């Protein structure tokens, strides 16, 4: 599996420049051992022996996991930006006809405040939407393809065996219940959230295709209940994301910097789950 290979590769890189027994040098404690990245360190003069060798602090091992491969990190951030643009421009588009009923008589279902929208006017919002839909689709396809090909999807796909673990986790987060032991990278509630988010993405894509080209994709339009209803499903998919995002952000804040940083650097320090 590519994912494991990735980890293997990372491990090898780590152990490659492992510190070897070396003469002690005059240097302040904590300075870097000579490595290929810090060749300057060898310039110092060795101290006269005998002095008991000291284990340098930096060689003490840290538990860490390379959680998020590059493909996941890139698609996560491209997708986050695209989703922000698509939701805000989409709300501006919705303002042009804020209803799912007939045009005559038109009932305003929701008056979306302009401040929440992007694009300034319908035409501007459509430009944002028609530009970032490509980023959204591309990042989504690469993400799903990577998960499937690498086999990594098994760590976060919600399956029936995760059902019993959902309630204890929800009770822990929302009702201050005891914390269930961590068994893997993602707990059942996370799996449910991430798997649903993929579902919302697929629904946005299919409904988006029909709204964009209902005549060319008339078969798909039929399957989704027709053009008119598809507009409602597209909106529902957005509501799904709007439900997912706050929960996701709250969890990011609760889990702290090291967890957030792992989506930037891939590496997570002291993961709470066992090997």
């Amino acid at each position: 599996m590519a994912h494991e290979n990735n980890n293997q590769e990372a491990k090898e890189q780590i152990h490659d420049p492992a510190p070897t027994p070396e003469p002690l040098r005059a240097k302040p404690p904590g300075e870097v051992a000579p490595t290929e990245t810090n060749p300057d360190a060898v310039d110092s003069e060795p101290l006269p022996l005998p002095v008991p060798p000291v284990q340098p602090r930096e060689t003490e091992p840290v538990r860490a996991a390379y959680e998020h491969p590059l493909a996941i990190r890139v698609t996560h951030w491209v997708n986050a930006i695209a989703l922000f643009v698509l939701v805000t421009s989409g709300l501006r588009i919705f303002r042009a006809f804020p209803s799912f009923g007939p045009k005559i008589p038109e009932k305003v279902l929701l008056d979306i405040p302009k401040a929440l929208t992007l694009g300034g006017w319908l035409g501007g919002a459509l430009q944002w939407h028609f530009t970032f839909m490509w980023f959204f689709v591309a990042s989504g396809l690469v993400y799903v393809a990577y998960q499937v090909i690498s086999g990594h999807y098994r760590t976060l796909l919600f399956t029936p065996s995760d059902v019993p673990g959902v309630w204890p986790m929800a009770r822990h987060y929302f009702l201050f219940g005891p914390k269930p032991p961590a068994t893997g990278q993602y707990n059942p509630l996370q799996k449910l959230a991430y798997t649903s988010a993929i579902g919302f993405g697929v629904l946005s894509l299919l409904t988006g295709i029909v709204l964009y080209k209902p005549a060319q994709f008339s078969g798909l339009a039929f399957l989704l209940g027709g053009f008119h209803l598809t507009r409602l499903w597209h909106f529902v998919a957005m509501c799904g994301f709007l439900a997912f995002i706050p929960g996701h952000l709250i969890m990011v804040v609760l889990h702290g910097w090291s967890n957030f940083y792992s989506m930037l650097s891939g590496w997570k320090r002291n993961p709470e789950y066992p090997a």
Partner: protein
Amino acid sequence: MISQLPEKELQRQSRRQLLKLAPVAALGVFAFPKVNDRLLAAGVRFSDWASGGLFRSQHLAQTFPDSEVVPFEKFPYNGYDVLDPEVDLEKWTLTVEGEVRRPGEYTLAQIQALPKISQNTRHVCVEGWDVVGSFGGTPISNFLRLVGADTGARFLEVDCADDYYEAIDMASALHPQSLLCYEMYGQPLDRKHGAPLRLQMPTKLGYKQAKYLDTIRVTNVLKPGKTGYWEDQGYSWFGGL
């Protein structure tokens, strides 16, 4: 999954991996107003290019039984300026120009003499609403044959009595459901719906369906800033469904 590694090494690995994300930051250029106009224009151009590629010239848009047609009173009037430019229907002729063998003035009677079709199709507005209406007229392709148009040309441009203007790609113009429409709901077009003649294409958005046609021009070149009334302000030019 879990590695044991020295602190420095973890930091070094983390930094290296972080730097690999740098290309994503390039998306940040969209935050600059001066730049994003051009980027968004490129995004819309790309979408239009893809739309042209997705267009299937012989694939018919859905048609509906009479029972699903929205009543005439509930078919919205939409105009960009005036709802009735007061066309003199008695003296009206359609001017034909450009890449055609027989340019000149054509009367409504000449157009109505061409084979007529009626269709119940969906009219989709860029705002998001849609209505199923009943339309009658002659396929644009019949008229282009009558005037000896070069159908290898790229565009069909129209000018309207209310100073609206539009342009469509030749493939869409030649689509069998693309009409020069002079009837709605079995009656001659009323003034607010574009009398005496409008475009009606179920494979295009509403803003492409120009009303009060005055001039039709077959051309290979669209003047920049004169590609369509709304398109010149930022709507997608292809506007296809």
